[in-house]
């Protein structure tokens, strides 16, 4: 009897984690470059109450399970839709690959959020102030910045007819992007599970194209999240009913002896 109680309790806590995850997805429905996470459920160990195949023809055993749990939250790196902003320092990767930014300690982090800006020294930085990797400095007398789909950055200076190339933006690809660790602020860190990044120019080796003047919106589908929320809520409710029912059975057993 206590098994059903615990099984249902584990079921409830797994559903609760699922709701937490949906809440985070919904909260980031409008976050640039956000990738939705999904939870992966699995069933837990089975206890063999009777073993099968012993001394008779029926091979089936009697096994009782012990509930469900969440093994992983998996990020879905499906492309979000591209939104035109017209801002010359807004970049979206259309396809595979991450933009790179460098933290003050020199380590590189990865992002799909291409809302860049200039700092006081004219360097291209993220909204949180991390420098774009590789470093690109925009001269102060720049009138126009052009970023081609293959990552080449050109600037047109005042009183100069020809654009001047100042560098090239590269993108990083991972064999397992789902293994990246989210560190907040739309940034990801490389882990052992994600593997080493393959860094190269956009539009080559399977990497996507850069689109200047666009931002990638979140890939959260609000309707899908609401459906997930309802499913989790109902499953939670059913597991809670199992707990009250198990409790009722215990009560019946208790009242056997008057």
């Amino acid at each position, binding site marked *: 009897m206590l098994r059903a109680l615990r099984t249902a309790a584990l079921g409830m806590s797994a559903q609760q984690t699922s709701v937490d995850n949906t809440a985070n997805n919904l909260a980031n429905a409008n976050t640039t470059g956000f990738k939705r996470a999904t939870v992966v459920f699995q069933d837990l160990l089975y206890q063999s109450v009777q073993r099968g195949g012993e001394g008779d023809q029926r091979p089936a055993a009697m096994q009782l399970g012990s509930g469900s749990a969440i093994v992983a939250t998996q990020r879905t790196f499906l492309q979000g839709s591209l939104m035109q902003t017209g801002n010359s320092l807004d970049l979206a990767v259309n396809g595979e690959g991450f933009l790179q930014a460098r933290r003050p300690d020199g380590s590189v982090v990865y992002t799909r959020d291409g809302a860049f800006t200039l700092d006081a020294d004219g360097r291209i930085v993220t909204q949180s102030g991390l420098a774009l990797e590789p470093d690109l400095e925009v001269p102060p007398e720049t009138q126009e910045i052009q970023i081609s789909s293959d990552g080449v950055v050109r600037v047109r200076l005042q009183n100069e007819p020809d654009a001047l190339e100042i560098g090239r933006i590269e993108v990083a690809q991972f064999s397992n992007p789902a293994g990246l660790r989210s560190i907040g602020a739309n940034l990801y860190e490389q882990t052992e599970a994600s593997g080493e990044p393959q860094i190269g120019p956009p539009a080559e080796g399977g990497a996507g194209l850069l689109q200047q003047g666009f931002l990638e919106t979140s890939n959260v589908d609000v309707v899908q999240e609401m459906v997930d929320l309802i499913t989790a809520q109902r499953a939670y409710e059913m*597991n809670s009913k199992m707990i009250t029912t198990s409790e009722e059975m215990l009560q019946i057993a208790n009242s056997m002896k008057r």
Partner: protein
Amino acid sequence: MLLRLRNAATSMADIVHRQDRTANNLANANTLGYRRDRSFTEVLRSEIDAEGSPQSDRRTVGQADLVAGALDPTGNPLDVALGGEGFFVVDGPDGAPRYTRAGRFLTDADGTLRTANGAAVRGTNGPIRLPSGGPILITEGGEVTVGGQRVGTLQVVTFEDAGTLRRLDDTSFTSAAPPVAVAAPVVRQGFVEGSNVDPIREMADMIAHVRLYEAQQKTVQTTDAILGQVARDLGSF
């Protein structure tokens, strides 16, 4: 008379096991690829005692209900669902094969196809390694190509007798019987197969179990009352 008590007690213990099973099914109503656990009670031996009350020895066996779950589109290239019968084959922690319908796969650092729990997915020629670059396509026959280059074929197997399947964690099964390759598997890329638990049926079972339990308890109580009365009345004679 005492047999009646024993019968009721056995039945109550049996109902508890059934309820445990229903609880596990409900807890896994949202677990991808989960197969409903169902049970059969077999009567092994029946006899009638001196008073005419029947007594039976029973045994409950569980078996996975292999009815397909609903396919849920995810659009994720490494999510695969089996449209027909069969199981994907993954490596267990002890190296023995495990069989699962939960086709939500990932790649690890060197591109090997794995389950969320880290078990390597077996292809017909060993593990499947996906190089990065290029779109991943998985055909209906389970052939995996990356950027047009074939990297392996998902192994899809079935069993002649589903009764040989034993449950393990990680939504997987093991079997003592040798697996048989499915001749024409139906692998659907971008879909995952949901649990085949029907929550309404489980809720109905749950209520039925508690009421059966109550009825058996009343049998015990009534038998107890009759026995008490017999002892009192005969004693006062």
